[in-house]
């Protein structure tokens, strides 16, 4: 019963995080939501008995991809500031 409730909550938060990451106007916030999505996805993989995928998702999907996206946001902001 508790496991089912947890799974439903996880699925709902996944959809919510994905929706927020796609629709928010602030790019920084969108990247944060993408990382949240990645970490929740890792939890979902763990729940699906795929710990290998969970590890890879947490490290590569949320960690490195998040760092790269933050970098891009920084570049975009710097470029926006320099423009008159």
């Amino acid at each position: 019963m508790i496991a089912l409730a947890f799974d439903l909550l996880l699925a709902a938060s996944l959809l919510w995080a994905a929706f927020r990451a796609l629709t928010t106007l602030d790019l920084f916030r969108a990247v944060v939501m993408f990382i949240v999505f990645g970490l929740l996805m890792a939890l979902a993989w763990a729940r699906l008995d795929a710990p290998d995928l969970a590890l890879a998702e947490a490290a590569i999907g949320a960690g490195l991809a998040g760092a790269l996206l933050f970098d891009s946001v920084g570049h975009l902001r710097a470029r926006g500031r320099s423009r008159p």
Partner: protein
Amino acid sequence: MTRGTGRFRKMLVSVGCASLAGAAVFAVMALPEPAVRLAGPVEANMDRSGVTHPVTAVLLNFRGYDTLLEIAVLLLALLGVAAAGGSEKIGLRRLPSAPHAFLQSLTRLMAPLMVLAAGYLLWAGSHRPGGAFQAAAVLAAGIVLLFLAGLLPERLQSDRLLRVGMVAGFLVFLAVAAFPLAGGALLQYPVPLAGALILLIESGLTISLALILSGLFLRLPDEFEEEEE
């Protein structure tokens, strides 16, 4: 862009995503039973794979060819990034601002633990979840963290060492893959040696993948700063 078109576009994207998700759910529901179930043959051949964890056995023994090509693709991606930089030397980018003292002390604490965790994941890959990719991702995250804190050691920034390190894993894998060619086919490890060979490949892969993954982050061209100069 006015507010109206922005909202319209957002709605369009939402509707598109919703219908795509609906179609995907429908497709999964309508999926026929797979004609071939591979879990059985994998289970049956586990004692010939040299490891006891089925995922590692599939990735590095039964379907080693896929993994070999994956590494080649990642290496190509990094070469692409380096080529897009335009300069002959794949130099490291500069830090935009001085790192925070808190970040530095935290990184000093974290980096050794991350190396330890990566070593554990590499070793654990043979009998439980873990393996080269996960270990490399942890190591790469450690290298990025060290770089952001301005603590990356000089030795890790040496150009020639890095180039050798990046291709070493792929070359080790290729050599091990080609070694059984004399007796039969590509990637057919001799059964008694399989465990040791897989550990050798995974060790090489961990180091190379860590350098490649972190290289993708550290070697991005500083496009904006170049424009400014």
